[in-house]
């Protein structure tokens, strides 16, 4: 019995050793192949007038590894080198396979196809990707939104905004990130979205319009602050105005800093006023430091610093009063001075 057990154990150890060795060899071959291909592709990209033919003709295991490498590089580089990578992927039929993969019954394949089509900025896939925004798998919908961000065609903007409230929706972060990649070409569609879409979409449109430092969108944002019936949209528009920093919206902001507004909207307006830095707003900000809401009073004290030397001077005066405003003034001044240095230990 002992001999049989010892024999089985020895056999087990032997098989395990052989399997490990085979796996190790296979991994080594894979790494070596990947290294060879990396060097070949990098060498080809380094020589700007070299023909892509040799690389494009690789097949079998080498071909599969090459496709993986090219797809991986596609997301890391831009410019002329990126265009050459797309050209080789086209020659190898990878882009065509991705277009077909977008119709696969397997969600993972559909999602991968979206990622590749987006990375390759394949304009011909636009309508397929728009359709995939309604895919029954959430991961595929997100991948399609990201891919549309890569394509950057403004046609997609209303479709992306509409996904925020659709039955098969896409989360706000994915939509925002995708729309951020569009750049200035999306401004007309976002402006339209400020009026002609759901509250969630209007809030995202306002947020994005505030990221471009474009003065021409200020009137549209002011109109949302003044007339929109959804508070999320008004807050997003106020924050966008603060980011743009145009003093032309100061009167609108002063209007929504009043006590008849919600603390959230007041806080956003006060912060925006602080970002813009309007010295004429000091008396209103000082009055806001008396607000019952802690956030409103804190924001008002901090915003006074945004108004420059006059605001800082007034805060120093208020600090000496010893009332409620003094506490907020002290906190704002301490924050501006940075953390208090710790005493040295003995």
């Amino acid at each position: 019995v002992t001999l049989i057990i010892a024999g089985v154990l020895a056999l087990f150890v032997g098989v395990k050793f052989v399997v490990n060795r085979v796996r190790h060899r296979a991994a080594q071959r894979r790494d070596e192949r990947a290294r060879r291909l990396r060097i070949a592709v990098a060498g080809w990209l380094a020589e700007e007038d070299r023909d892509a033919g040799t690389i494009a003709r690789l097949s079998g295991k080498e071909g599969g590894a090459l496709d993986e490498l090219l797809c991986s590089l596609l997301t890391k580089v831009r410019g002329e080198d990126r265009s050459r990578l797309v050209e080789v992927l086209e020659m190898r039929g990878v882009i065509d396979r991705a277009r077909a993969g977008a119709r696969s019954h397997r969600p993972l394949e559909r999602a991968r196809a979206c990622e590749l089509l987006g990375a390759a900025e394949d304009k011909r896939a636009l309508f397929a990707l728009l359709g995939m925004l309604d895919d029954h798998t959430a991961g595929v919908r997100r991948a399609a939104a990201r891919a549309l961000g890569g394509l950057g065609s403004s046609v997609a903007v209303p479709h992306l905004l509409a996904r925020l409230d659709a039955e098969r929706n896409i989360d706000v972060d994915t939509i925002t990130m995708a729309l951020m990649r569009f750049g200035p070409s999306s401004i007309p569609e976002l402006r339209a979205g400020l009026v002609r879409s759901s509250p969630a979409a209007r809030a995202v449109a306002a947020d994005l319009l505030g990221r471009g430092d474009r003065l021409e969108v200020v009137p549209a944002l002011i109109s949302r602050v003044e007339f929109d019936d959804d508070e999320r949209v008004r807050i997003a528009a106020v924050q966008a105005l603060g980011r743009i920093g145009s003093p032309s919206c100061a009167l609108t902001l002063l209007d929504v800093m009043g006590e008849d507004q919600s603390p959230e909207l007041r806080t956003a307006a006060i912060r925006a006023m602080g970002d813009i830095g309007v010295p004429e707003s000091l008396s209103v900000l000082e009055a806001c430091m008396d607000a019952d809401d802690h956030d409103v009073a804190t924001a008002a004290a901090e915003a006074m610093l945004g108004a420059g030397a006059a605001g800082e001077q007034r805060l120093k005066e208020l600090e000496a009063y010893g009332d409620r405003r003094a506490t907020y003034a002290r906190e704002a001044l301490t924050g501006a001075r940075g953390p208090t240095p710790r005493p040295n230990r003995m």
Partner: protein
Amino acid sequence: MATVLIVDDDADIRDLIALKIESAGHDVYIESDGEAGIAAAELLRPDVMVVDWMMPRLSGLDVCRRVRAREELARTGLILLTAKGQEADVQRGFAAGADDYVVKPFSPRELVSRIQALLARVARPPVAAPAAPSEPRR
């Protein structure tokens, strides 16, 4: 011909930019983590280092700080190559001692141009400070 040291844990990027820089006529050395990058820099005294931010063992930001803390590497140009493109990240990069900042996805050709420009700056002798006026201006 200049010496360029690339420190990046992504082999695809490392090989791609190494061959690009080599084809521009420079000597290129590569390392795959921050600690090894610092050790190689001390040995090679490169003219320019291209450093990734997110790396194992020692981040690119720490590599920049350590390089800047060493007197013998004072003339080494530092380029941070990173996916972190926020304004605050760029500020942190320059505060750590980077001379230039390249955000991924990047153009390898543009990176080579930036290296050439940095090399030209490093090679240029420093301009002497103007003499202080003997009397304050009125």
